[in-house]
């Protein structure tokens, strides 16, 4: 039984799926509102920097990650601890439904970080690092870090989450994006910190 009530109807509970009550885009899948929200926040807005914001993320990227969790091709520690279990019984239509729902939510606006890091990060983001062989992030992630297709939005994401992913790419703990290992394997911790502060602010 799923019951729902919208504002204005007081405490009356009515049978049926909650509808038309200020959600954005497609109806939230039951999984999203009952399970995913506990870590990723309502509408994927985020709750704790330990778990990435999903609101406004590229749908193809979300779909690819859910599949990668399910088939274990993405195996960073947090993925193993949380997402392998979460996705093991998800079928493809459900994955697509979840991805569409979160993609349709408004992304959380980026927040500027430390000025020095921002300046350094902007340079890396827009021009890359020649000595370390790091291409400009804009070439794939876009000028506003909005992402495209199966390349993720970085803007508005939790900076601690982004920097953790770069570290995982560098160490190959996260192995489902070989291009990111090539990008990061010569980056220093300071460079990762700076570029993610800038990207998250977009």
């Amino acid at each position, binding site marked *: *039984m*799923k*019951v*729902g*009530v*919208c*504002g204005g109807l007081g*405490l009356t*509970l009515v049978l049926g799926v*909650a509808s038309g*009550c*200020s*959600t954005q885009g497609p109806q939230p899948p*039951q999984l999203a*509102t*009952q*399970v995913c*929200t*506990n*870590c990723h926040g*309502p509408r994927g807005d985020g*709750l*704790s*920097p*330990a778990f990435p914001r999903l609101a406004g993320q590229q749908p193809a990227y979300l779909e690819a990650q859910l599949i990668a969790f399910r088939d274990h091709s993405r195996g960073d520690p947090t993925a*193993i*601890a*949380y997402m*392998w*279990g*979460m*996705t*093991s*019984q998800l079928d493809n239509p459900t994955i697509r439904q979840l991805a569409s729902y979160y993609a349709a939510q408004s992304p959380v606006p980026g927040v500027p970080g430390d000025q020095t890091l921002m300046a350094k990060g902007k340079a890396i983001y827009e021009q890359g690092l020649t000595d370390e062989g790091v291409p400009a992030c804009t070439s794939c992630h876009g000028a506003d870090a909005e992402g495209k297709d199966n390349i993720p939005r970085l803007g508005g994401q939790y900076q*601690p989450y982004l920097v*953790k992913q770069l570290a995982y790419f560098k160490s190959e703990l996260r192995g489902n994006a070989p291009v990111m290992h090539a990008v990061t394997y010569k980056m220093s911790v300071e460079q990762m910190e700076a570029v993610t502060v800038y990207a998250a602010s977009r």
Partner: protein
Amino acid sequence: MRVLQRSGTGITFVAAVIACVLMVGSNDVLAVPSFARQTGLACEACHTVFPELTPFGRAFKLNGYLIDNLPQVKEITAEKKETLLLNWLPPLSVQFIASYTKFNTAFPDPNGGLSQNGTVQFPEAASLFYAGRIAPNLGGFIQITYDNNSDSFGWDNTDIRFADQATLGQDKPLTWGVTFNNGPTIQDPWNSTPAWHYPFSQTSSLAPPQIAATQLDSIGNGTVAGLTGYGYWNNLVYLELGGYAAAPHGIQNVPVNSTSFPDGSTVHGLSPYWRLAVQPQWGRNSFEVGLLGFSDQVTPPGLNVSSGPTDRYRDTGVDAQYQYLGDEHILSAEAIYIYEKQTLNATLPQDPSNTLRSLRVGASYFYQRRLGGSLGYTATTGNTNTALYGLTSPPAVFVASSTGSPNTSAWAAELDYLPWQNVKLALQYTLYTKFNGSSSNYDGTGRNASDNNTLYIFAWIAF
């Protein structure tokens, strides 16, 4: 471990009830690999370090232990209503606790000598759990425990609940449910309340019992069973209301006698329980503050149940819990204060009004969920009443109060190492500043509070 009632001659009613403190003080566990098997989630998803819950772990509990990533055995009606949803593999798990306990001074034995000190319990307790989904919207946490002290198995913590989701007010989520459980606060999702208190969920079952403890601190399975309804709104406000009734085990369950059995007391009618809590979360932090209450009416052992006088207890508590969940560092703190008003028309009709207060505070830190520790303080205070707490004849050695005061206070510290998420190795020390009313000669035979100081080394394994 909340399993078995202690019985024995020479122990007053109060001490007998409060001997349950021995049980409550040890082996309270919420973490079970059954859930890991059912959900596919590693322990850290729901726990900081077991048995303490994370906000996600609390959500899992309030949602009926239902999140499930195992293949299911299913059945549906023609209207697509699910009538069966069984995990393909049962979510069973085992826990095993082995320990070494040593007191500062050995206890006196009945022959005037000293009893053995520094003993190993292997196991001190071991449990089998079924924890997880039972049916669509119905889940349970069911525990059976072997207790070393009684060398027997007994029924332990049980919480079976129906849970569902709704929305209330502009799309705000409401998790609501009904729980059927065998002790107030077993169903509570926070680790500040007595049943799952943390830190120091696990303490030595050999530790001497305090002469008094509040109802909330001591009542448990073997005495009552209850039904409560709850709602958790917008991941912020929690409200629960319900009641408990007598649910004795064994021969006590068969109404063959109008007199309350000598081994236990009889709880009358419906004992109400209520709970209100608010838990804001921000970033990696969560902070809960709440209130709870429980009251019951009891016929002590040996008195007539239907026509005799009764003892009434009313407990009101305030609690708080804070957690910081970092990638490498975890910090948590819990506190609870319970005020109990007693009207003992049966036990002490000449002087029935008494009060008892219990305080528990503790904090823990863990690095990478592998190495850490806890520090805590507990105190029970109450009015001096020599008729209620005073020396019996013959005197109950080392559990008595020579002053008639129940005041007991202790500091505890613990160091933990977890080589793996489901194995905890711990070194714990409890230091009593006061025991049963005094710091020195508390029982009239010369035993000091510090003689009860306890070194407790244990291994807690769950699989």
